[in-house]
């Protein structure tokens, strides 16, 4: 069985600030990590691998050369092969151009896939569109917001517990299918140092647009239907009310009365 996990390198969001003058993200000095939702997707793939013989996991990432680090992380955690899809011609790609590129990459490097796992969204853009678009492009079923998944006993279908607005649904789809993961283990996996060293011996290849069988018009900015015009932080909500000059006892009473007035307690 062949599983493809699409992964993205993102800035560690808790540290990201927006430059108020340029309206762009300040990325200097901000650490890059494997998108947490992609890590959940990989986690589900690894569980399936643990429970099923002969599963091969290919991690694919579209990004600049430094996104290799995210693929290395995936290899350390247990993926068998990494593929970096990188080309200057991809610059400015919106979700559609990204999905088109990734779908073409899947076809190019793992055409015989059975399952594609993606994170529900990336924590930098938060669009949650690339996964569904990939499924449409590839013409396969999709199940979004998966929290648990397992193969049916005959190995031909995938059963997925997914989050919905009101609770959970359990859906089944025949393979091949694309599933996005919205939850994984609360405690992230931790590789051994042997895993970290072994990851550096696993195949990690880089392919460019030339390998994708796409036209120039379908790539990057040219192939994008949307453009980001501006990024800005939301307006701060109501100013905080600060209690000063009160004893802990008085302050406690004041806070309790406020919470009660606002019907919080």
């Amino acid at each position, binding site marked *: 069985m062949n599983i493809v996990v699409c992964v993205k390198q993102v800035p*560690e969001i808790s540290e990201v600030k927006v430059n108020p003058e340029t309206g762009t993200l300040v990325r200097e000095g901000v650490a890059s990590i494997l998108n947490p939702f992609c890590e959940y997707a990989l986690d589900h793939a690894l569980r399936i691998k643990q429970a099923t013989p002969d599963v091969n996991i290919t991690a694919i990432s579209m990004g600049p050369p430094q996104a*290799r680090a995210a693929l290395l992380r995936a290899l350390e955690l247990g993926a068998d092969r990494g593929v970096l899809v990188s080309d200057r011609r991809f610059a400015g790609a919106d979700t559609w151009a990204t999905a088109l590129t990734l779908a073409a990459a899947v076809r190019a490097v793992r055409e015989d896939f059975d399952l594609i796992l993606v994170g529900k969204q990336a924590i930098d853009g938060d669009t949650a569109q690339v996964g569904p678009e990939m499924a449409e492009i590839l013409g396969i079923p999709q199940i979004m917001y998966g929290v648990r998944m397992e193969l049916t006993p005959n190995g031909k279908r995938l059963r997925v517990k997914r989050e919905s607005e009101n609770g959970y649904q359990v859906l089944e789809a025949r393979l091949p299918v694309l599933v996005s993961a919205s939850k994984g283990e609360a*405690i992230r996996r*931790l590789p*051994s*140092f042997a895993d970290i060293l072994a990851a550096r011996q696993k195949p990690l290849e880089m392919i460019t647009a030339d390998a994708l069988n796409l036209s120039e018009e379908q790539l990057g900015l040219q192939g994008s239907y949307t453009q980001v015009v501006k990024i800005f932080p939301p307006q701060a909500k109501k100013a905080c009310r600060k209690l000063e000059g009160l004893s802990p006892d008085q302050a406690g009473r004041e806070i309790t009365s406020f919470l009660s007035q606002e019907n919080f307690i």
Partner: protein
Amino acid sequence: MHEITSQPLDLADYRQVRRVQGWPAINEQYQAYLRDESKLTSETCDYLFFPQNEAELAAVVREMASQGVPLTVAGARTGLVGGSVPLRGGLVSLERLNAVEALYYASYAREWRVRAGCAVTLSDLNQMAMSKRFPDLERAGDQAVLAELARYQAEPGDFFYPPDPTEMSAFLGGTVATNASGARTYRYGATRDWVRGLRVILANGELLDIPRGKYFASSNGRFTIFDSQSQGRQVLVPDYSMPRTKNTSGFYAAPHMDLVDLFIGSEGMLGIITTVDVALCPRTPKCSLVQFTGSDEQALDLVESLRGQDGLQLDFLEFYSQKAIELLRRRQAEEPVAMGMPPIPEDAGAAVFFELSFDPLAVDQDFSLLAQAVERVGLSLQNSWAGYEMRELARFKTFRHMLPETVNHLISERKRQYPGLHKLGTDLAVPDDKLRPMWKVYQEALDQAGLEWLAFGHVGNNHVHINLIPRDMEDMQRGLELYGRFAAQAVAFGGTVSAEHGIGKIKAKFLKEMFTEPQIAQMKAVKRALDPQGLLNPGNIFLS
């Protein structure tokens, strides 16, 4: 040169210095200032001063000296031996001396240095060094300063300040006064190794500006310190030898020593450190690694194997004993998410925690030396946890703090039944060849006494913290007796009674385990030469 002259400062008006006066007001509103992390609490204090610069501090020192009122000095109060807790007289908090004054490249030493007020915290210093943003310097707007800052920012690599005591909220000045150390002392040494200069207010209210490398003890072991009135005081360097371990017990002494070193680790007894010049160190990417072992013995085998492996450079080397792992396992069962780690492997009998340079994207890194050192003692790197991203390093750090936190929690629960009960934590270090003999002493004595205990800490420096967790007051008494025996044994092995916590007031009773009466008398003579009235930090180091 062994002669130096102190400078008078333009005196500020003593009456203008911010203060709280009188025990009732201090005790009612400023209780936090009356204790440190040792929980030793002051029972009397007449003044609490908050000087905002050296001139105000000097004015306070002179006024108190003229009244014969002793003065205790407080930094961030993160110490563990009561050094900043006043026994009587006044308390001066240095928290307002918290500006970074300069960043400069010392070309002869090929290193970047920061000159900072004593109240800059280690965490702020590191944050500024690593982010390459120094708000105090940017605000000052001086063109030469900004040009130097721009040069620093243009450096391709990252920098940090290596000393890492557990409390990174500690003030720089406090860490110098106590020669603080931490896990990274294994590779980078203690605070002493990173101090390049000091400014000190002496007990007479004058300022001593001491760059490292300029004032050395004369061939007959003396410094002469003149005041602005040309009155000279002779300081005779004690003739004892320092232990071959990391150490914070007693005044530093060595032939031809640098005057800077006399003040480092002197616990505020000889003067008040106001400004410190420290060197920054280039920072390479790191990988943290917890290697599980089958037993305590195998962990010590691994420590010796790692230390003996030529060409293998670790940043720190820490130990979790079997009993420590058992306690962590129990905590993990109760609160798996708080622990933030996968389940501790079932076959783990102890662990060794270390860090080494690791570039995730490099293609030509060779870790065969590490693999050899681990496999030599029958272990496999497969049985480890490892991480190198910043968030992963933070995760390991949380895990590291989980153990002392769990011990403290256990103690506070037992304290409810026995209010007088507290943790007994050793701070003893011995030379390399005595690691195993000392471990045997601990293990046999503690198990024989039937006490609940565990061990963790800086095994790379043979500085394992033994934590006794008394179940009742009887355990407490037996533990205290054993502590005394352990301290004597560590000294007999050529070690120290206080490797990193200092002596302060809590451990003053152990000084005599390590130094003879004549040696302590030599230390007291140094104190008398610089503080004839004995007004600075009474009760620290010497039993009063």
